[in-house]
C-alpha cells in the first residue's frame, strides 16, 4: 500500500481534480438551471465572506490566546499578529459593507447589523460543512475498521514490569 501512496504523485492530482471538477460541475448545473448570474456580485460575496471569516477566526483565536497567556509563554508576537489579522479582516468587512459590496448598510448600526447577519451565516455554513465531513469520514472510518485483520502479535506480549 505504501508503495502505491508514495509512488503516485499523480494520485493526489486525481483526488484534487475530482474535487475541483465536481465543484465546477455543480456550479455549471446551477448556472444552467438559473439562466443568468452576475459574476461580479458572486466574487464580491466571496471576498466579503473571506474578510469576515478572517476577522472572526482571528478574533476567536486572539481571545483563546489572551485567556491562555502565562508567565513562561512567549505570546507577544502571537497576540500582535492575531490582533492585526482580526483588525484587518473586520475593518475590510466593515468597509465593504458600508460601500455596498455584497451587502448594503449605512452608519455604524447598519454595519454591525450586516456583520451580525454575515457572522451567523458563516457559523451556519461551518456547522453544515462540519456535519457533512463528520458523516463522510465517520462512515469511512466505520467501513475501514470493519475489515477482518490478523491479530497484532504485540498484544500477546507480557509486560516486563513486576
Amino acid at each position, binding site marked *: 500500500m505504501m508503495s502505491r501512496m508514495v509512488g*503516485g504523485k499523480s494520485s493526489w492530482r486525481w483526488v484534487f481534480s475530482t474535487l475541483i471538477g465536481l465543484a465546477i460541475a455543480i456550479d455549471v448545473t446551477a448556472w444552467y438551471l438559473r439562466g443568468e448570474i452576475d459574476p461580479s456580485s458572486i466574487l464580491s460575496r466571496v471576498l466579503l465572506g473571506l474578510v*469576515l*471569516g*478572517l476577522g472572526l477566526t482571528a478574533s476567536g483565536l486572539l481571545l483563546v490566546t489572551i485567556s491562555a497567556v502565562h508567565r513562561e509563554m512567549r505570546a507577544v508576537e502571537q497576540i500582535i*499578529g492575531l490582533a492585526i489579522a482580526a483588525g484587518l479582516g473586520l475593518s475590510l468587512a466593515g468597509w465593504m459593507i458600508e460601500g455596498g459590496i455584497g451587502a448594503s448598510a449605512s452608519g455604524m448600526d447598519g454595519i454591525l447589523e450586516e456583520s451580525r447577519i454575515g457572522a451567523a451565516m458563516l457559523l451556519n455554513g461551518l456547522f453544515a460543512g462540519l456535519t457533512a465531513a463528520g458523516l463522510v469520514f465517520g462512515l469511512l*472510518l466505520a467501513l475501514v475498521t470493519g475489515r477482518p485483520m490478523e491479530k497484532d502479535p504485540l498484544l500477546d506480549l507480557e509486560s516486563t514490569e513486576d
Partner: protein
Amino acid sequence: MTTTAWVFGIPDPWVGFWLPLGLLCVAAGFWLTDAEDIRRRITLPLAVVSVLTLAVYGGSTRGSDLVETSLLGAALGVAGPVILMLVGCLVATFSGPAPVGPLPKGLRPFGFIMVSAGLAWIGTTLLQEPPGSRANGSGEIMWSTWVMTFLSSVVLIAATAAVFALIMGERRKLEAGVLLSVGGVSGGILLYLFTNGSVDLTASGWLDVYWEQLPFITGGLLGLIAGVAALILSVYIGEKRTPEPDIVPPLSEDERTRITEILREHLEVGGEE
C-alpha cells in the same frame, strides 16, 4: 432592558448570543493553561454558564425573526439527525473487528442503519411543511442555506474520499462504493431541489440561495483558513525571535558524584551495570 427581561430571558443578541460565544473562546483558553492554574478550574463553570445563556436566549426569543434565533432554530432542527448519524458511526466503528471494539458485534448493522436513518431524516424534512422558525424570513434562508451547504459538502467530500480510497488504498471497492452512493443520493436530492424545489421553497428560491449564500460561505471557509494561517505565521515569527538559551555551565564535581550514585543505584536493581 428591564429586570423582567433579565429574569425570564435575554432579548439582546449581543448579550444572549455573541457574548456566550466569546466566553466559550475564553473558556477554551483557560482550558489550555496549566493544571495548577486557577483559571483551569473555572473552565467548566464558564462553559456551562455560556451554554446556559445561549439556551435561555434561544428560549426567550422564540418566534421572533432575529438571525441568531434562526441559526439556533436551524441547528436545533437538525440536532436529532446529526446526533443519530454520529452515534451510528461510533456504534458501527466500535462493534467491528477492531481490537478496541468493546460493543457487541451484532450492533454493527444497527450503526449503519442509524447513519442511513439520520440522512433519510434530513431528506424527509424537505418533504414536510417546515415549523414556524424555518417557514419564512431569515429562518427560511438560514435553513435552506444549511441544507444547500450540507448537500454540496457531502457530494464533494464523499466523491473525493471515494477517489482517495480507490487510488491510495488496497481492496477499497466496498468503501468507495458506499461513499459514492452517499454522494450520489445527496447529489440527487440537490438536483431535485434545483429542478423541482421543496414543499416550502421553489426551485428558483433554492438556486437563489445557492448563488447568494454559498459563495459567501466558501469565502468564509477561505477566511477561516487564512485566520489559522495567521496564527501559524505569528507563532513561527515568535519562535524565530526567541533568543538562544544561556550556555549551561558544566557539572560540578559534587553533581557528577551524585549522578553517578543515582545511576549505579538504579542500574544495580537489574543486576547489571
